[in-house]
């Protein structure tokens, strides 16, 4: 626990600095009265980062790069299919549908990565291509509209999707499957020898990632208010960057959802500072890359320097 805390330290320090900078630069945007809309802007990225975490915790190259396209796919199916064609607008059906769709795709990813043992990055990159292709086929151009309650998920109730994922994860950590997943992530051979069903633990992690990505898709739909085939895939790289910033080890077994959330907030606040200065998206891109490399390099670099001076 302390190990993952220390590797998240750079992320936390960055968070504090960025938060102070943001409040100083733009007090009205960060005033308590606009928190709802502010969280609504950050929520899709935050949820995407949370969603990407479980698969990574399972170790042995576990990763799900299809989270972004899955959000876009959920967005397309909800807006054009469920709301547009079938005219189902009640939250009692739309929210479970989003979660179920995400979990189903997560299950397929888990079957190919954990059960069939295809290298996870290949399996989920395949899913990335399939989902992107299907989404563009369903929704060639931005279209559709959403009910009022769904729109409020990016305004007053923007905390709901994040809370939903947080509570689900908190519940999951109470089950033995959580310990088994972390054991598989830190040393799968030891875990296997100790009788842990490593395959099942990893399968569950992909289903969780998928279900959370479904919630992230819901939050994305609330923010953009229509079906858009181009937005989803951009979240994959940002989510993985968030996780690295937040000190979740890509080797698995270390870190948790809190780290991923800190990393995602870092990226959101950085975006917010840079857009305040009206810089071009190109500069924004360089800044992302630079902050990512600097942040992941800072904590091991510190350890090296301390070890040398001691």
């Amino acid at each position, binding site marked *: 626990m302390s190990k993952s805390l220390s590797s998240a330290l750079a992320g936390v320090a960055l968070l504090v600095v960025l938060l102070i900078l943001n409040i100083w630069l733009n007090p009205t945007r960060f005033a308590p009265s606009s928190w709802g809309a502010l969280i609504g802007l950050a929520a899709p990225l935050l949820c995407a980062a949370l969603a990407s975490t479980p698969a990574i915790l399972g170790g042995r190259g576990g990763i799900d790069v299809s989270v972004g396209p899955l959000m876009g796919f959920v967005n397309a199916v909800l807006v054009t299919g469920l709301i547009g064609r079938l005219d189902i607008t009640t939250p009692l059906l739309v929210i479970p549908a989003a979660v179920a769709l995400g979990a189903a795709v997560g299950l397929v990813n888990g079957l190919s990565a954990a059960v069939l043992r295809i*290298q996870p990055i*290949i399996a989920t*990159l395949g899913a*990335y291509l*399939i989902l992107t292709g299907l989404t563009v086929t369903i929704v060639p151009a931005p279209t559709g509209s959403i009910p009022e309650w769904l729109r409020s998920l990016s305004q007053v109730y923007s905390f709901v999707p994040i809370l939903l994922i947080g509570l689900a994860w908190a519940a999951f950590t109470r089950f033995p499957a959580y310990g088994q997943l972390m054991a598989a992530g830190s040393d799968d051979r030891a875990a*296997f020898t100790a009788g842990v069903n490593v395959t099942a633990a990893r399968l569950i992690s992909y289903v969780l990632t998928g279900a959370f990505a479904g919630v992230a898709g819901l939050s994305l739909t609330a923010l953009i208010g229509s079906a858009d085939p181009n937005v989803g895939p951009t979240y994959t790289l940002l989510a993985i960057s968030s996780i690295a910033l937040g000190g979740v080890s890509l080797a698995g077994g270390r870190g948790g959802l809190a780290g991923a959330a800190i990393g995602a907030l870092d990226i959101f606040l950085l975006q917010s500072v840079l857009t305040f200065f009206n810089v071009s998206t190109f500069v924004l891109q360089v800044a*992302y890359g630079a902050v990512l490399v600097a942040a992941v*390099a800072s904590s091991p670099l510190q350890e090296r320097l301390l070890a040398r001076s001691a």
Partner: protein
Amino acid sequence: MTLDLNALRRPVVGAIAIAALLHATGSVLIDGYSSPFSIRAMLVLAALLAVASIGQTLVIIIGGIDLSIPFIIGFANVVAAQLTGEGVDFVVVCLIVSALALLIGAANGALSAWLKIHPLIVTLGMGTIAQGLVLIWTRGFPSGSAPAFVSDFVSIGGSMGPIPLPGLIPAVIALAIVITLLMGRTPYGRKLFALGGNPLAAHYALIKPIAMWTTTFALSAWFAALAGVLLLGFTGSAYGDVGQPYLFQTLAAVVVGGTSLLGGRGSYLGTLIGAVALTEINTLLIGLGLQPSMVQAALGAVIIGLVCLYGREPHLRTTI
């Protein structure tokens, strides 16, 4: 001279069989699939992919992964075009692009190995920075084009004297022999497989991981830059996102060719055939008249299916 037969086992045979099967399917289903022009086009596309995949093969065998390849391809593509357009001599352009690519690649490898950060993150970050800097420099609208001899070298209609193939094809075959010899017959190659197979044992064998990673990632970036310049000749004008399809394609070519993403196992011959198989799939899907978005979706499904056939990881119980 004998090559390492162990590295050329089942996966390479499997990849050859699949490429042949795909080609037969295409010839039956699509008119003109085996026409000389279509075969030449597929060879050129496969050769470009094969060049871009050299680095990915080396980097994966050492136990890493290089996500910066698509960004470096775009970076080299745009920088080469822009500098050529400003009247810089092409030799100087190549030197500048090579130096920059080697520098980025070396930074990728050194940071990953020295600070023990996952190369996925480092290469992603460095790639993003490189592409962003180029976009700032060209303000998003790159201009310029490749000199005529580069275009001739990769042109589908090009020929070398009596042989109706562009110079790229024999060049890539020669390059493949050099890379295979480098991996199988030199101290560098032995260290590469040793580090990927068992880093701890490699440490006791006095192999320097940081030097090896730095060299290998620098090579990877250089070959990506080479692919970027060749693509400039192929497409005619600069385009920053020209490398994007190559992220998935290089990884898929490597894996279809039987190289394990866990490191220490694999061959460039496999990657070469993987590149041919992927080009066959792509051509077949487009030839069947699918929409570009559905081609993409089908490509994802087919590759998962292919890897399922023989690219699967061993069960955990066999590793204990």
